[in-house]
């Protein structure tokens, strides 16, 4: 697959907030160091204004931008861009190591739909993953928006998309001792919010998906519907509750977890590319 497992490992087992990003104008790979410097200055300026809330005013925040090749899907996809903010204590600069306080990753896995008709000056990296304090995300986002004339939007995941994810991921081959497939539903219109969690043994879920899927490697909406209907009727038979009338808010499998607020956690390195491809597609749909 080409992705350096060491470098891509930081993407795993971490909760990422998702954003869709419109194409960046005049983004140049050769100027990453310069961008890092400018971004660092913007953060320092914001802290001076007292906007960034961080414990310990004796820490300096430094920014670093780097290219992360190997995550692309097609040849046309640009390499991912990694942004990291690290803090170093001013009081003991020699003793302490840099601690990464915030990470962001722009990536594009099979983004041909968006990049096809773009003029030369634009770089297409529609999926943005952020991990760390929200204040830093908004400072970095504002800087990118100002500098490259792009626009960030929180990427929400609809219940329909979540059903695709759980069907796809539950059907993946996993090792013994894999975690359960879990679906969390929120029941609407109650005076007090009620969440229902439905956990399925991963082998049972995979067995069910295998009976539903007709062509390996291909998934249709009908197959996802049948898979979900089986799960809903099983639950109704036992608990007399119609999950199909509730809102699916979170899905969790051994491959990855996804929440409708646009938060994902990727757990399995083998399927990293596949998950990013799905998320890229969602981001592109939101942009268009």
């Amino acid at each position, binding site marked *: 697959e080409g992705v350096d497992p060491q470098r891509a490992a930081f993407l795993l087992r971490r909760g990422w907030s998702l954003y869709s990003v419109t194409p960046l104008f005049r983004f140049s790979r050769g100027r990453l160091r310069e961008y890092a410097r400018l971004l660092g200055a913007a953060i320092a300026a914001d802290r001076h204004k007292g906007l960034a809330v961080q414990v310990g005013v004796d820490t300096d925040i430094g920014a670093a931008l780097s290219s992360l090749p190997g995550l692309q899907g097609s040849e046309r996809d640009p390499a991912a861009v990694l942004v990291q903010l690290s803090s170093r204590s001013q009081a003991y600069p020699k003793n302490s190591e840099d601690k990464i306080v915030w990470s962001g990753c722009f990536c594009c896995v099979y983004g041909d739909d968006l990049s096809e008709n773009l003029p030369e000056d634009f770089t297409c990296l529609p999926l943005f993953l952020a991990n760390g304090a929200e204040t830093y995300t908004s400072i970095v986002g504002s800087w990118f928006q100002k500098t490259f004339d792009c626009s960030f939007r929180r990427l929400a*995941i*609809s219940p329909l998309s979540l059903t695709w994810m759980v069907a796809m991921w539950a059907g993946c081959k996993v090792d013994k001792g894999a975690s359960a497939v879990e679906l969390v539903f929120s029941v609407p219109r109650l005076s007090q919010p009620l969440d229902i969690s439905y956990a399925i043994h991963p082998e049972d879920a995979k067995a069910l998906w295998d009976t539903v899927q007709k062509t390996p490697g291909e998934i249709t909406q009908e197959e996802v519907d049948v898979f979900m209907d089986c799960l809903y009727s099983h639950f109704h038979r036992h608990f007399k509750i119609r999950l199909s009338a509730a809102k699916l808010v979170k899905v969790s499998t051994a491959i990855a977890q996804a929440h409708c607020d646009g938060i994902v956690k990727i757990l399995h390195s083998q399927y990293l590319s596949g998950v990013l491809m799905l998320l890229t597609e969602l981001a592109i749909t939101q942009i268009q």
Partner: protein
Amino acid sequence: HLATSLPLPSERDHLRPRIDLIVFMIDIKSKYSLKNVEASLAHVDPSFFLGKVYFLVTGVGRVNYCSIDTNAICKLGEAYCSPVLFCELELEGIRVATAQRLLRILQICAGLVPGVSALSFGLLMRKSADD
């Protein structure tokens, strides 16, 4: 008259006035509402499908809450030769406008608008939805 599903209870058959229009409401946030509508359709006399059945999809304002594939609903409309209307009931303006539209459609289906039949109007609605 509102009903959560069909068939209607037979006890009140003799008291019920003539039915001019059936609007099936599908909440895009609830997969169950689609299943319920699909099950209820089986209880509708075929003559209604000549312009006296409409599908009303609600909740379309919130894309992030979508639990039903819109294609499936459009295919349902095609399968039953009935127009599909989309609306968002939580917004008062759209709610009022939708109610006015349905009232107008009801007038046509009841034969109260001279020169326009339920069938011809239904065809017009479906054709404009395709464009």
